[in-house]
């Protein structure tokens, strides 16, 4: 992969939270125009990585370049300009609960542009049509199901025509039909709008059908990368455990604990 084709470049990234190292020399390149998945067991800092890429938190060391801009060197206003070129789908949708579906999708347009009402209406309705929810324009977020809420959030994320679309756990808590809808939308939006998509997830099945490239994170590092097919036959214990969904392996089933029998037989009050 040559340098110019990467839209997000992360090199030698270190990040520590509360004395616990989350990333230790992380290197990731996200190619332009593809669907890239970031996978890994819970607690490996996938969501933290998204926060780093979007500049919500700062790295301790190392550099993150997004669309040619070095995040560490950007001012607050520079960061806001860059963010207009990104869209993000939050895990729970994060719709503004005091606004209707229509107004939620129109929100970025109203905040950043002076477009006439007629044009805003057209843009919003086209985006809602793209996610299949034009008929729900008048509803309030509380009236939507989880899957519908996420689709509305997706319409809102693409309304400013971003170059990068980021999905944080888009499949969590969805029924199989909604899951299929989201998978299809990720692929279709990516190809139709010429986006670069970054999907953080741990749903192996869904990711395999949609991703072009997968990074598997564990212990603050990339342990494997490649197409979903390549990963399935990857010669590594941890990759096999993750892709096969095995309960025990390099990632232990048990949280670190003192000796089991010792603790059971210990007297009350003694650790």
């Amino acid at each position, binding site marked *: 992969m040559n340098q110019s084709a990467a839209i997000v470049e992360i090199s030698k990234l270190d990040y520590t939270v509360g004395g616990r190292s989350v990333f230790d020399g992380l290197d990731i390149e996200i190619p332009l125009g593809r669907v890239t998945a970031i996978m890994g067991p819970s607690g490996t800092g996938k969501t933290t990585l998204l926060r780093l890429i*979007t500049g919500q938190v700062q790295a301790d060391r190392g550099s993150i370049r997004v669309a040619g801009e070095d995040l560490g060197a950007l001012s607050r206003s520079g960061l*806001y300009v860059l963010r*207009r070129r990104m869209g993000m789908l939050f895990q729970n949708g994060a719709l*503004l*609960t005091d606004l209707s579906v229509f107004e939620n999708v129109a929100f*970025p347009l109203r905040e950043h542009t002076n477009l006439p009402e007629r044009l805003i209406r057209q843009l919003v309705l086209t985006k809602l049509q793209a996610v299949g929810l034009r008929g729900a324009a008048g509803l309030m977020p509380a009236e939507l199901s989880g899957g519908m809420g996420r689709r509305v959030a997706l319409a809102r994320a693409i309304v400013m025509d971003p170059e990068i679309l980021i999905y944080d756990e888009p499949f969590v808590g969805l029924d199989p039909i909604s899951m299929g809808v989201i998978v299809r939308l990720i692929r279709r939006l990516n190809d139709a709008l010429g986006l670069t998509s970054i999907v953080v997830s741990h749903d192996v099945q869904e990711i395999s059908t949609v991703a072009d490239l997968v990074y598997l994170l564990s212990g603050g590092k990339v342990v494997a990368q490649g197409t979903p097919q390549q990963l399935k036959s990857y010669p590594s214990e941890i990759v096999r455990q993750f892709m096969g969904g095995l309960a025990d392996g390099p990632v232990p089933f048990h949280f670190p604990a003192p000796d089991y029998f010792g603790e059971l037989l210990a007297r009350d009050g003694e650790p």
Partner: protein
Amino acid sequence: MLRNLLAGLTRSLESLGATSRFLGRLIIYTPGALLRVNLIVEQVYNTGTLSLVIIMLSGLFVGMVLGLQGFQLLQRFGSEEALGSASAIGLVRELSPVITALLFAGRAGTALASEIGLMRATDQLSAMEMMAVDPVKRVIVPRFLGGVIAMPLLVAIFSVIGIYGAQLVGVQIMGVDSGSFWSQMQASVELRDIREGIVKSGVFGVACSLIAVYEGYHSTPTAEGVGLATTRTVVTSAVVVLFLDYLITAMFL
């Protein structure tokens, strides 16, 4: 023990400093926010109009009690006619601003704090940041300004209804002469009494709104955190209002 006391003092000074810096940030953003009038109007409605019922009812009862107590007291000295000026001065200078501010903290302040806290807990504020919209500008400043504008209006309404309540009991029921009730009030209430009331309502408006939005914005994004922020809003507002009330009263003497 002494160390704990010192640590507590440092902590409260720290939070006072943080709140002041937050206020500075709100003030810097205020000119820009004033351009978007409809956002502020919406918040004046939420904090002001929706508090009207509780403010008017409380004003009426406080005025009625004032009429009753005042009448009993003044009657001992044979000066029931002074009831008009006594209740008006008491209300305008002291009771209206303080009671309105306490009710405001309970009704509007808690609503603001929990709303903002829940917006944080459900990622709505992060979502705005990701849409390159500063949540402080879009969410916090209009709510703060809405409260600052609503408070003096509520205080004025409280005073008017309170005086009506005093009149209701004093004149209609207890039989104080209506002419002397009003003329004594007119003769004795001075501009500086009104000014004191206005200054208090303005300062309380800033304090209560600031505490509410600060607590909401900085709440821990959990159910427990939002609950705690709401509680702290009421407690802090009440203490701060009563403390500032003493300061301003002393200043106006």
